């Protein structure tokens, strides 16, 4: 099993610290979302893992080996860094052929990944005629070329149409399901929430969180319950008796903060309060993330092995 291990990784550009003493692992069999605002150091970290930039200190390894020591690396690691990397005057297929040749990947894989990414019909067109979404798919095709056990994608949903976004979600889930190690950076919370199992969150080059996504949200966002009733007075009294505070909203529904739907449902039922609607409002990744970055000044990096 191949994981990505980052150890005390630091990268300085002049006096600016892009990555600051990062330590985390990305494990196989799940999708790890790599979150942080623009400029937090996500792309730099990926470049360091790929041996493209030299770390100021610390190390990054793939399956305990530095990237440069991998024999035919595309067969181990597939990466999408920049959708603009393919030369505009080459056809998409030729772009993939040059990559495949360097790592002795059979030519049939080129046509397979083109079909898999939905580019088969434009494979012989020059890349400069591609839309951003098509370039993004070509970059993903390049990442999948060597059937790698580690896949790293930097902002893969950039420029994809809604259909493409659903496609990439399914792709990421499938890759993780096949036991591969999948690291996907994004600054889009709802998008990340739809595919990630685990999160690594960066802020200004430092590690802010390394935790399963569900725990990350639950630890930061209190659950709420949403209720509609025909008898507000009775509802309010019942809840108040048990220490819950119900707040009425404009369109007639009530929100109970810091409460679980199981408890509220039982209370209402026991008190005979007629309910029209009872629903749990789960915390979203976006709320949890804003809570974390809002508290960034006083944060202590939490590092949990999962």
């Amino acid at each position, binding site marked *: 099993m191949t994981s990505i291990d980052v150890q005390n990784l630091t990268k300085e550009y002049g006096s600016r610290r892009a990555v600051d003493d990062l330590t985390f692992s990305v494990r196989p069999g799940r999708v790890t979302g790599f979150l942080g605002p623009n400029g937090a150091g996500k792309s730099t970290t990926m*470049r360091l893992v*790929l*041996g*493209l*930039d*030299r770390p100021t200190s610390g190390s990054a390894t793939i399956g305990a080996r530095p*990237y*440069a020591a*991998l*024999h*035919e*690396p*595309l067969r181990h*690691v597939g*990466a999408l*860094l*920049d959708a*603009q*990397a*393919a*030369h505009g*005057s*080459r*056809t998409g297929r*030729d772009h993939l*052929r*040059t*990559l495949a*040749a*360097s*790592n*002795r990947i059979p030519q049939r894989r080129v046509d397979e990944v083109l079909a898999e990414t939905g580019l088969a019909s434009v494979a012989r067109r020059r890349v400069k005629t591609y839309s951003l979404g098509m370039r993004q798919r070509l970059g993903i095709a*390049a990442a999948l070329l060597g059937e790698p056990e580690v896949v790293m994608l930097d902002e893969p949903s950039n420029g994809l149409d809604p259909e493409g976004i659903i496609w990439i979600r399914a792709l990421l889930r499938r890759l993780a399901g096949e036991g591969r190690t999948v690291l996907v950076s994004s600054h889009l919370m709802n998008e990340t929430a739809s595919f990630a199992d685990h999160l690594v969150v960066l802020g200004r080059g430092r590690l802010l969180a390394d935790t399963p996504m569900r725990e990350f949200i639950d630890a930061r966002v209190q659950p709420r319950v949403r209720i509609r009733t025909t008898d507000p007075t009775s509802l309010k009294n019942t809840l108040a008796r048990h220490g819950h505070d119900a707040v009425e909203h404009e369109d007639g529904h009530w929100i109970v903060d810091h409460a679980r739907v199981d408890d509220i449902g039982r209370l209402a039922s026991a008190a005979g309060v007629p309910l029209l609607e009872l629903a749990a409002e789960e915390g979203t990744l976006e709320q949890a993330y804003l809570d974390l970055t809002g508290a960034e000044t006083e944060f202590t990096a939490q590092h949990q092995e999962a």
Partner: protein
Amino acid sequence: MEFTPVLHSEWLKIRTLRSLVGGLAAVLLATAAFSALAGADTEGAAFDPLFSVFFGVGFGQIAAIAFGTTAVSSEFRGGALRVTLAAVPRRGRWFVAKTVAIAVPVLGVGLVTGGVSLAVGKAVLGTRADGLTWGEELRGVVGCAVYLTLMALLAAGLTAVLRSGVATLSILIPFLLIVSFVIGDMSGSVADVLPDRAGQVVFHETWDGALGPWTGLGVTGLWAAAALLAGAWSIRRRDA
């Protein structure tokens, strides 16, 4: 990583870019065309039939330089080098493969160019070319191939250092077109060891500087080697 697949990949990159294939064709066309033109004007006391026959190399080299530059500069746009080096993390090996993939086609096209230029030039000169010996003609053809290859490699190395095709061409082309013409008649000076001046001795029947045809190409080779070493150093050292 083995070398052959890397070389194969670099060769594919050259074959699949029309501008590069076009650049190679331009080497042949420009050289032959200007050699033919030169043959039409042979006035003056210092007429040298060998130089007349290969006169077009001075123009063909611009295409060779553009070829060497573009082959490397295409790696420095849009993060292409990152994709390349992620596939081939052994940077030294990669750069050697790139160099070979540039040198071999230019050498091949250079030989054809030399042959065509000779044939066209002699046809235009007619009897005025009778003084050329078989040895001089062979020297010119081989020299044409080697000279064009070295100039393409000089440009390739410089591009790797400057990381920009525009920067490379805006140094080399004015240099070749202007500097050499301006100081062209000053023989026996520093001008003799400039890469183009030194290498072009091979296209003269007689020479009066310190450098002969092969030593002159050797000097051009040193320039190209220096540029390539600097390029390799830059590729290995710097963040991609």
